């Protein structure tokens, strides 16, 4: 099995789906000739032509709006938002149109749309190129939010998103693109949206995370294992709707839960995860539910020391995990 990077897994998933289904097409800023600013769509225009790999104007509401129209017409668009930070002009299209189309039309219409957006910081991208925006969408029934952390999951979940008959927001942590590599089969496989995944079995503490911070937790867990502390790590993979069953199971397993994400702490996905645990696991809890997340400040700073302060890293995660283990 080939070891490939996260971004190559994303490209592979799109290429396979475009070959499999002529209704699948890609649109977004610089996705064509340039192959995407992160090179996620590299090679697609050469293989599928400019009618299926469409360079759009700098207008996110139009990218998503056009995609919704095409989806309603029976196509399966993959709309790329160049940076998740730029998704704001398209929020009305996503929340009020795409997410509600099936419900509003009493099942007459649906919207098989995938919106890909690179999110997260740690790449010296400052405030317009580093945001985590998932929490803005995670109370919108009708919408699914997927945020894989490994190349294997990225391929399987992106293919599932493209085949899904309802809109899926697909967030890719941009620092994972080239940092994270892993084995990805050439086969045509899909992974279920809505299912979390245990990335490491353990007995002392439970860590629940997604995206880049999941890898920090895995690294910290290695270090803690040498100290005799065993961490159980759950990758949410789908952020909305959450896999409540898996969350409850993972939390109950150790009774000590640490939720980690790069997004701001207050109002983040972690609050919802903590609420699920509080509702269902009171009598299994052995410690207060802890959250480790980005600080509640308006944006990722440009200054390197301040960016470092904002970003989590394996050391910060290690400290938090260790503290909980010794509680």
């Amino acid at each position, binding site marked *: 099995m080939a070891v490939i990077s996260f971004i190559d897994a994303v490209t592979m998933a799109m290429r396979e789906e475009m070959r499999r289904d002529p209704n699948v097409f890609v649109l977004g800023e610089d996705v064509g000739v340039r192959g995407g600013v992160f090179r996620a769509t590299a090679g697609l225009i050469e293989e599928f032509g400019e009618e299926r790999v469409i360079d759009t104007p700098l207008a996110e509401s139009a990218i998503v709006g056009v995609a919704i129209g095409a989806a309603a017409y029976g196509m399966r668009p993959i709309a790329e938002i160049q940076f998740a930070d730029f998704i704001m002009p398209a929020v009305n299209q996503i929340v009020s149109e795409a997410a509600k189309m099936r419900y509003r039309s009493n099942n007459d219409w649906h919207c098989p749309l995938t919106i890909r957006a690179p999110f997260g910081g740690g790449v010296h*991208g400052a405030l317009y190129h580093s945001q985590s925006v998932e929490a803005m969408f995670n109370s919108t029934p009708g919408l699914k939010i997927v945020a894989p952390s490994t190349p294997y999951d990225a391929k399987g979940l992106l293919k599932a998103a493209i085949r899904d008959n309802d809109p899926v927001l697909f967030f890719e942590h941009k620092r994972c693109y080239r940092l994270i590599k892993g084995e990805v089969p050439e086969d045509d496989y899909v992974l279920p949206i809505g299912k979390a995944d245990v990335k490491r079995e353990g*007995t002392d503490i439970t860590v629940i995370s997604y995206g880049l911070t999941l890898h920090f937790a895995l690294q910290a867990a290695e270090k803690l294992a040498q100290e005799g502390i065993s961490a159980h790590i759950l990758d949410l993979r789908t952020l909305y709707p959450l896999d409540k069953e898996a969350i409850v199971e993972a939390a109950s397993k150790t009774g000590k839960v640490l939720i980690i994400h790069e997004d701001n702490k207050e109002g983040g996905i972690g609050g919802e995860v903590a609420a699920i645990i509080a509702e269902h696991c009171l*009598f299994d809890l052995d410690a207060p539910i802890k959250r480790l997340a980005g600080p509640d400040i308006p944006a990722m700073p440009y200054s390197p020391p301040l960016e470092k302060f904002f970003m989590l890293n394996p050391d910060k995660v290690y400290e938090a995990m260790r503290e909980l283990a010794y509680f």
Partner: protein
Amino acid sequence: MATKVLMPQLGESVTEGTITRWLVKVGDTVNKYDPLAEVSTDKVNAEVPSTVSGRVTEIVVAEGETVAVGTHILSIEESGSAAADVPAEAKEAAAAPAPAPAAAQAPAAPAPAAAAGAAKQRYSPAVMRLAQEHGIDLARVQGTGAEGRVTRKDVLKFIEQGGAQAEPVQPQAASVPQAASVAQAAPAAPSAPAPASFDIPVAAGDQVIPVTPVRKTIAARMVQSKHEAPHAWTMVEVDVTNLVNFRNQIKDEFKRKEGVNLTFLPFFIKAVVEALKEYPMLNSTWAGDKIIVKKNVNISIAVATEDALYVPVIKDADQKSIYGLAKAIEDLAARTRAGKLTVDDMSGGTFTVNNTGSFGSVLSMPIINAPQAAILSVEAIVKRPVVVNDMIAIRSMVNLCLSLDHRVLDGLICGRFLQSVKQKLENIGPETKIY
């Protein structure tokens, strides 16, 4: 002072780079911003500029090697540095920020504080649940958490090691093996110090029944009553031959007319209520610096179910006829057994009548239903030979037992009260009004 040059970040999303060619070698003198190496990434090819001026002392990464952004690739001895002539190794050691922080800090895990910290007595929900399910006295569990806190793992380990089932074997028992079965049963109970009195060993095969909330309430209230109210006890015997005859005479007719069983209890309650009106001190409560004599006469009656005892209340029993009492008793008993009592049904009692005779008792010493001042138990009616007018006769006799709060009541008034009840019961006959 050696400065470490790190692999720079050459573009967003780039996380590693390959040194394609070194442009300097160890010993070279470089100026700030001079190119040190050529680096290629999957996005760009670039040169790595020097961050300081000085002499190259070490090249860490070989040509062709791919390393992560932030990796130390070479060291430069800054010009004019005070430590310039110190051998390279020593400088390295001094400069390097001890690369093994984990080993140094990690094992600082708080000692399993036997000297119980503040957290020792604070238990998490998981710990409480496990302790309850396995009947564990948490005081016996060694805590290994922060400040000696007992963790879920500690309890699980305790259970695994059989802690929930038995005390560590007593030394005497071990040294007298032939007496093992006796020793096992014997030693635990008597000499245990007060707080450890719940360290009761559970032998294999014993059944551990979790305490239900209602059992817990009963236990707490009984202990409280026995502890707070000095109980005194007295008893009279009553000849209820006439009552028995009267009741037997009318009970079927009553049942047919009213649809309610006419038991003996309403007659007893009626007599008690009338006597309470004469001796209201028995219908009172000890309140520390005062005694509160209750105006309302609300009679608590004890109703037993298989596993618990409830004391629903007949409100304003003094305003009810025997018929009214019979109906109220039947209603409360039915609702108790159906588990449909309301909080209101259970509150406000001022005196308790306990029908212990219903299960055959002829003598009982009831515990006062606090904060009431007394409780009367009606024992079984039995036929006995008794002396009447200097002749032996077979009469239906019943014992009435009274437990009283001696803070409130003395023997004299209670004796008078019981005599009054006795007299009323013995005077029941065909003229007694049911309605």
